[in-house]
């Protein structure tokens, strides 16, 4: 029970500090998403819509 409580407490527990690799991951994922948006958007708009 105590262990369960400790486990659940982690929900609101102290978050790890934000690190550079996280910022990189987010940045590159968004960049990839935007490239996909423009590239696929253009292809779909030209050939399908």
């Amino acid at each position, binding site marked *: 029970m105590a262990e*369960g409580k400790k486990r659940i407490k982690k929900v609101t527990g102290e978050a790890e500090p*934000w690190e550079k690799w*996280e910022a990189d991951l987010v*940045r590159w994922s968004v960049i990839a998403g935007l490239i996909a948006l423009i590239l696929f958007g253009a292809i779909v708009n030209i050939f399908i819509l």
Partner: protein
Amino acid sequence: MTAGKWFKGARSSEDWWALWIGLFFVVIGLIAAATRLDLTGWLVAFPKWVDIAKALKAGHPELMGGWTSLILSYLIFSAVTCLGARLMKWDVRKYFLAWTVIFWLTAILYILSRNAYVQGTAVDREKYGIGWSLSIGGAHYIIALLAGLIIGNLAPRRFREFLKTAARPEWFIKIAIVALGTKLGLKAIETTGFTMELLIAGASATIAAYLIFWPLAYVFCRRVFKLTREWAATLASGISICGVSAAIATGSAIRARAIVPIMISALVVVFAVFELLILPSVLTYTPWFNEPIAAGASLGLTVKTDGADAAAGAITDELMRNRAADMGVFWEGGWILSAAIMTKIWIDMFIGIWAFLLAVIWVYHIEKKPGEKVEKMEIWWRFPKFVLGYFIAWFAVMGLGLSGVISPESLEWGLKPIEGAMRHLFFMLTFTSIGLVTNFRELAKEGMGKLALAYGVILIAIIIPIGWGIAWLFHHGMVPPIAQP
């Protein structure tokens, strides 16, 4: 010493056993399709009903009656899951008794919640001869979850502990996801013409959407709501990709504690029901009405359970076509729903890719200590094996169908009960189990409120507006074909 072998856990882990059980039934479905021997028709399905006598039917109704099919399904699934439980060294006697309670509780809830007054759409009302219905498609999942929560929180403690022996939400959903692979294979075979255009537009929209959804959701969780990485990654996957399945796959890939994907899954289900109730009307009675296919696709990008997405698509299809008919325009039925489903199917496909990427990131960036050498096998060990089953099922069905080895009609006949009846039953077992293992009072006290707030804010501020924009960009101007008089 097998600790380092590639098949570590193949006989003893829930993940591997989901793969074995899922593929076992897929193979049976393929044998049925190839030989036309009815090996899958016994699977029980739960159709909508007004007459309780018609609340159950076999996957192939000509094979047997509904009740026989339910009993047979119970016996076969009991045998298979007990075998898994035995090899995983669980207490099989206790598992069997608790499984029996959970199975029959789930079956009863499934029957009751499929009543046409609860789930019937406007079309169903005509079909079933009823004057009104609540139109809550997918209500069975929320009812199973609520019932599980009530029992899991209010029943005597000994009974709750007993039920938890067999309340295995992760195991059940993983088996269901392997079965989902067959659905993707069947869909890939049948796509032609306008459907193919919808599929391509949906795929493009989905790739762009989830690459943008996930990092933004992750940043919000980490920077705004100060969640730890395991909560942030699992919530970001749940809300960005395909809800429960993605949360579970992510949980496996990053080795999150079991409670993490379970809590996120509960949020996914609850919020999906709110979306189901609100979004169809919003889309129909706003300028979205002029972009019906884009509206359907937007549901696939924003409603995070298959059931709620399909239900929201069906309601939107119905509402929009009725409104168009009032203006003298008669659209063919089902296309808005198809747009919702196609986009969702693409999102479903990305579970495996994302789980793999997260496993790599977690192994090499998060859990790696300075100077430590990480074995490449570690990525394989933490890659969710049930996702492998899902890909095998998908490509096997698609390959056999497209190459003409088995006709598409035979594949549909043999696999439909696996893709439909079995998958839905295991989803139901999942939601009952999530409720049973969720201690809501403690969660509310300790942080569920914060998670729910994070989920709600991300849904409203990121997923819905961006999902709408992307759906419009890739589907604008598409309208359903005009219905022939």
